[in-house]
Each structure stands twice: as structure tokens, then as C-alpha cells.
């Protein structure tokens, strides 16, 4: 197993030589963000459960632990990490998942991995091993450096240890499918989500809307009866294929864009090939349309557009930011990684 001392040494040497480092976990998220450059730091060898207290609903793992391994440990106690981040063939690590702030179809109800984080240990750009947050549900001492790491994609430090809260595994799930147009599905999904039902998924794909309910059998059975559509006791792994980006939609999309938008915003570019998740708050677009005009449309509606696949070489893929935002991010980068050794250019060309 990799030792912390080795990772610290590598950072120290990189700083001394002013050489960039490229942080690697399971190497499963190359598709996200910009190309990585620099000498690889392999965190995948720094793995294993540090502490697990099922009665506390809290687990601490080293960052290189794979999500699948962790979920297996949790499953033995009938618990699960909420938010369903993708496991990517068992390659995704907990550290990488937090760094990219990923989640699955249940995001509107359970949040992303950022919402489960209680604390982290990181190596900063001074090669110091630091601990922020903790192992308890509530902790407001000091700034929230743990959640700041969510989405930073390693640009603000190397995650070495993560403490997460977990939830009891839902007893069962059931899905309801209904044939409907994309536009109408947005309205219907939002209407359903206003009701006090145990919804944990709301997606539109290829002419069908899927609603998932989770909980005790008796509860979801009664809830499903209130929804129009065909009850699918066995949903053919639809939700896991959605989560893992394994539906044909993703495989076929050469030019893949992901839009984050208020769920009630109108549907647009109706002729294009869409997949709508998160009850309308996430909209995937496969090919089609000029990126600039699409970007403007999304921005005007208060959303964010990211290019997931098919970006021009070297281009920025995440939404453009205001000068004030860029300055804030650059100053934070300076505070956590003064020599700029961690994953330069991975998130933005200017960071």
C-alpha cells in the first residue's frame, strides 16, 4: 500500500522542482474536464476502511478506496452511500468521486457526494497533511474546506481520507414508466415532485418518463398507485445504466453536453437528442446546435453548460466565469497550492 510519507515526498519534490503533478485515482473520469498534465501521483494505492461505525451511520475511508469496495462494506450492514455516484466498472475511487462531486439519479433528493461529506484529510501545496471537518453530523468550526474540495478536481489539494455519512439501504424500489413527450414530462415530473411521495428518481429518455420510488414495500406500493403509467417491478437496471452512463444515448453521443438548469425552465431545441434527469434540473444533450448560442440560452436561464465529450483540443469545457469569480478562485488556489503544482489546467485553462 502507498504510504502517506511517499505522497508527501512526491509533493515536496514537485514543489522544489516546480514540476506539475497529475493526481490519479482509478483513472475513470478522464472524460470529465480538461486533459491532465504532469507527473502522476497515484492515490489508488492509498486505500482501505479506516473506521466504520454502522450505528453512527458514518464511515471513514482512505481516498483510493473504490466506491464499489466501500459500498460492499456498507451493504453488509444494510447501509449505502446516498446519492448513487457512478462506480465506473469498479474503478471509481472515493477521492476521485468527491473531487468531481459526482452523483446519480437521486441527486435532487439525496444530494451528491458533497452532501454526504463530514470531513476530509488533504495534502496541501506545502506538503502538509491536514484534517478538516470531522466524524460528526454537525461541525461549523473553521471554514468548510471539505466541501470546497468537491468539484475542485484536485486543483486545491490531494484528498487522502474522506469521512462520509451513510444511510440505511431502502427496503425496496419500484419504477413507473409512462410514454410522454419531453416537454410534457418536465411539467409532470415537477408536479409529481411537489407531492409528499418517496420519489428518488425522475427521468425522461427516448419518449418515456421514468419515476422511481424507494422505501418499505407497503409504502412504495401505495405511492405507485397514485402515479399514472406502467409499474415496472423490475426496471431492467435502467437506473444503474443511467447512473453509469451506459444507456445507448451516452454511447452514441460524440458531442455530449450536460446542462444544469432550474427544473421548471422550458424545454428548448426540441429537435435535438435529449436525456432529462433530476426531474428536469439536469439535461443531457447529444450533438446538435452551436455551442455558443446554446451556452447563451442556458446562461440567460440561470443555468450552466459543460462540454463532456467532443470539445476542441485545449478548449475550456466548463462554463465561463466572471472576472470576479476567476479572481476568487485564483486566490483560493494560491492559498491552498501556492506553487500551482496540483492538476494545472485540469479544471480551467487559467487555473
Amino acid at each position, binding site marked *: 500500500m502507498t504510504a502517506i510519507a511517499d505522497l508527501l515526498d512526491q509533493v515536496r519534490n514537485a514543489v522544489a522542482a516546480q514540476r506539475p503533478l497529475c493526481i490519479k485515482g482509478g483513472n475513470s473520469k478522464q472524460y470529465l474536464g480538461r486533459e491532465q498534465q504532469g507527473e502522476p501521483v497515484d492515490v489508488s494505492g492509498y486505500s482501505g476502511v479506516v473506521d466504520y461505525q454502522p450505528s453512527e451511520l458514518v464511515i471513514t475511508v482512505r481516498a483510493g478506496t473504490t466506491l464499489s469496495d466501500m459500498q460492499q462494506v456498507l451493504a453488509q450492514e444494510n447501509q449505502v452511500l446516498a446519492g448513487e455516484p457512478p462506480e465506473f466498472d469498479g474503478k471509481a475511487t472515493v477521492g476521485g468521486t468527491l473531487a468531481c462531486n459526482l452523483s446519480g439519479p437521486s441527486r435532487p433528493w439525496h444530494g451528491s457526494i458533497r452532501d454526504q461529506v463530514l470531513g476530509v484529510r488533504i495534502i*496541501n501545496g506545502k506538503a502538509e497533511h491536514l484534517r478538516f471537518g470531522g466524524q460528526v453530523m454537525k461541525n461549523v468550526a473553521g471554514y468548510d474546506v471539505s466541501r470546497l474540495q468537491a468539484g475542485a478536481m484536485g486543483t486545491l489539494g490531494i484528498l487522502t481520507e474522506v469521512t462520509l455519512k451513510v444511510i440505511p439501504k431502502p427496503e425496496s424500489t419500484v419504477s413507473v414508466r409512462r410514454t410522454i413527450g419531453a416537454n410534457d414530462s418536465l411539467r409532470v415530473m415537477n408536479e409529481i415532485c411537489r407531492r409528499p411521495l418517496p420519489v428518488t428518481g425522475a427521468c425522461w429518455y427516448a419518449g418515456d418518463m421514468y419515476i422511481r420510488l424507494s422505501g418499505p414495500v407497503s409504502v412504495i406500493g401505495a405511492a405507485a398507485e397514485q402515479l399514472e403509467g406502467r409499474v415496472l417491478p423490475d426496471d431492467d437496471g435502467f437506473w444503474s445504466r443511467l447512473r453509469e452512463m451506459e444507456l445507448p444515448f451516452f454511447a452514441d453521443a460524440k458531442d455530449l453536453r450536460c446542462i444544469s438548469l432550474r427544473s421548471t425552465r422550458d424545454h428548448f431545441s426540441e429537435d435535438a437528442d435529449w436525456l432529462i434527469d433530476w426531474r428536469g*434540473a439536469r439535461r443531457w444533450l447529444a450533438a446538435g446546435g452551436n455551442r455558443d448560442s446554446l451556452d447563451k440560452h442556458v446562461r440567460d436561464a440561470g443555468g450552466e453548460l459543460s462540454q463532456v465529450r467532443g470539445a476542441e483540443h485545449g478548449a475550456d469545457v466548463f462554463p465561463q466565469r466572471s472576472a470576479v469569480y476567476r479572481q476568487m478562485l485564483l486566490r483560493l488556489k494560491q492559498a491552498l497550492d501556492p506553487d500551482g503544482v496540483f492538476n494545472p489546467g485540469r479544471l480551467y485553462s487559467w487555473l
Partner: protein
Amino acid sequence: METAVLAAMFREFIDARCVVFADESKRPFECDGLSVYKQLPGLVVMPSTTEQVRKVMRLCCRHKVPVVVRGAGTGLSGGALPHPDGVLLSLARLSKIVEIDPDAGLARVQPGVSNLAISEACAPYGLFYAPDPSSQIACSIGGNVAENAGGVHCLKYGLTVHNVVQLTIVTVEGEIITVGCDGLASAGPDLMALMIGSEGMLGVVTEVTVKLLPQPSHCQVILASFDELESAGDAVSAVIAQGIIPAGFEMMDSYAIRAAEDYVGAGYDTDAAALLLCELDGTEEEVRHCAEQVTAVFQRYCARSIRVSQNEAERLLFWKGRKSAFPAVGRISPDYYCMDGTIPRRMLSRVLSEISRLSGEYGLRVANVFHAGDGNLHPLILFDESQPGELQKAEEFGAEILRICVNAGGCITGEHGVGVEKLAQMLDQFSNEELAQLNAIKDALDPDALLNPGKGVPTLKRCQEYRST
């Protein structure tokens, strides 16, 4: 800079009555909910638009004037304690609910809106805003964001940080920045999370978009009393270990029970050593299912009495005692000092008995009323400020309690913040390198240390002083 000169500058763009200079008019702002600390500010400014906030910040930044932001002033760690030479920036007049989008489950509000006002405004749509601090009638959503406030329902629904999707911030330089996204996911580091709980030290929150949830169709409270604190503490862990996440799970000890019962007559068992309130919500099926299981656990831990609320009026009555516990305790003691440590749930009974032992040692009574499900303790140390030395004794006792919490694997503050009060305890929780990293973040966003200076994170110099004493 001369305060009078600054006041004149503010009056050029803010109604003169909202730029307060006279001592007697500044008096109401001299402290927050932690009233043992008092300080008159140089000037109180009450803008009513984000644009005015920007201009205030620009002027203060240019002239290097310290700024302390104030919401409703209910904070319990001195976070809104004014700076003697600075501006107290009150956001109470930014109090509009800008937009409610019931279909998306979102509300966009100004920072001065009270926590409860949000839930009241969306109740007609069958929705509510989940985090509900006990101070919810008064405290502002801006203050909630700054403290990452929790409440009775956070066990199931999360803290402020889990229920906010977007913030508008005015930076110390007077620039506007939006963080987060009402589409839930925002690319890049979670700057919004960094702002939440930053105690007014990294920026001024001028707009908040919160998540609204459907009101559950059913809700029931189980009220159980116990002969021993320990068995009540263990029962809390046991319920959660069983896979049940109650909407709220609160505990009171005998002092708190009796004080609350005398005050509001909620029907509590006044001979008990501990009382648990366990709220379950969801569909009718779900609530019935869980209520049976919780009742069984309470029986197993030898509850003296178990009552399940039979209707909404009874549910509210059960809660009434808990909700008025702080003022009720205020009636049995001239003063009290509220602590806020958090511990792993399984340590509850051990830490509670430690506290009760120390209570004997210090000769100060302690009433406990707290968020047991989250392991968030609120020991109320009872004292009398008019007795020489008692306040100091209470503070020492409090510091000791927080040390116990850290040693039990917990932390020094679950929801009230560090403020001016727990600066020394930050050293129990963080190493010098960690504190230096936190200070570097502060320097990055507020290079001249103008926003709430001297609070939240001890400076390196103070660290050395504390560690050497």
C-alpha cells in the same frame, strides 16, 4: 477614518435615518444572543438594496474600515459583536421574498427574511423550508447561511448547507458574485459551501435561493421518559442503528424537563431523569411502521412512559415544552451559558455523565436540552453574573465540556459558530498548520482583514499566546 465623515458619505446614498451615529441609537446593536460580550460599533448602517451594500463595502474597503455584518442578532457566539472602530452592517431591511417557484421547489429570498417567514410563505403551496433553528421566529436566513444553522429537523433533512442551492455574495471589495446554481450542480470547487458557515468573514450574503420540500402528509411524535440519562442516550443510538431516521430526535434532562413543564405545561413526566422526543414523518404507512419500531426500542431501554401523539394539537403540545426550553431555563437561573459541542451518538451517555460530574466539581448546575439524534449537545450552564467570579467559572466549565467533546471524537461547535467565544477552543480542534491554512483562505478573500476581524479563526499570534498559557 473619522466616523462622522464616513457617516456623511453613507448618507449620500442611504436614507439618513438608516445611518446611525448616536450612542443611544446604536445601543440595540451592541451585542448578539451572547450578551456577555458587548461593544458599541462606530456606526450602524442599514441598507435596503444589494446596490447599497456594494457601495458600503466599496467605501469601507477603500478606507480600510472594519465591517461586521448583522442579521437578526440571535447568534450565540458573538459573531455579530460590533467592532469599536467599524461599521455594523445590518441587513434587516433586505427582507423581501423575491420569488417562490413551487414547481421547482425553490425560493429566492433576501438575507433579512426570517427563517420562519420562508416556511410560512410557502405553506399555501404545501411546501416548507426544512432547517428550523429554535430561534426561527427571529433569526434571518442570511445569519443561517453564515452559521450553517441546524435545527430540530436537520437529522433527516440536513443543515443549511444541504438546503441552499445558490447565493449572491458581495465581496469585501464590493463586487457581486453568484455561487451555486439553481440547477443543483455547479462546476468547479464548491464556493457556495465555503461561504456557508463562514460567519460573515468571507463575504456578505445578499440573496439566498433555498430548497423547498413537500410537507409530509403525516407526522407523529413519540414522547418517552426514562429513569436514567444513560438509558435514554443509548435508546437514541439504538433507534438510529435500527435503520430509522426520525425527522427530529431531541433530548431533555431533569432540570430542563421541570423548567419547561413549569413554564408551558406540556404534560412532561417531571419525575424522569430524561425525556426523548422522537418525531416521525412521511406517508401514513411509513409513520405507523416506524412508530411501532421506535416504541419497541424505547420499551427495551426501560422507558418509564411512552406516549404517541394522537392528533396535531397533541403533537404541538409535546413540542411546545422543547421549543420553549431555553427561556424556561432562563426563569430558573439569573443567567445561563449555552454550549454547542457535537459528539458521536454512541458517546452520549458517557459525555453526559462526565458533564454531570463536572457540574458537581464546579458547583454550577447544568440543564441539557439538545439535538440528540445529531449528537449535538447544548448544555446550559446556569450561573449568576452578579456573583463575582461565576461568569469566569462558567466559561472555564464550558471550555472543559468542549475539550471532552473533542476527545470523544467530536467538535467544539455544531451550529452556533466560533465567533469571539470559541477562539481558544479552535486550538483543541486544529493544529497550527491547519489554522494557518484557514487563515490563508481568509487572506485570499479578505486581504486586509476587514470582514469580522478577530473572529472565527485565531490568528497565528493568538495561537502562540494560547498555546503557551
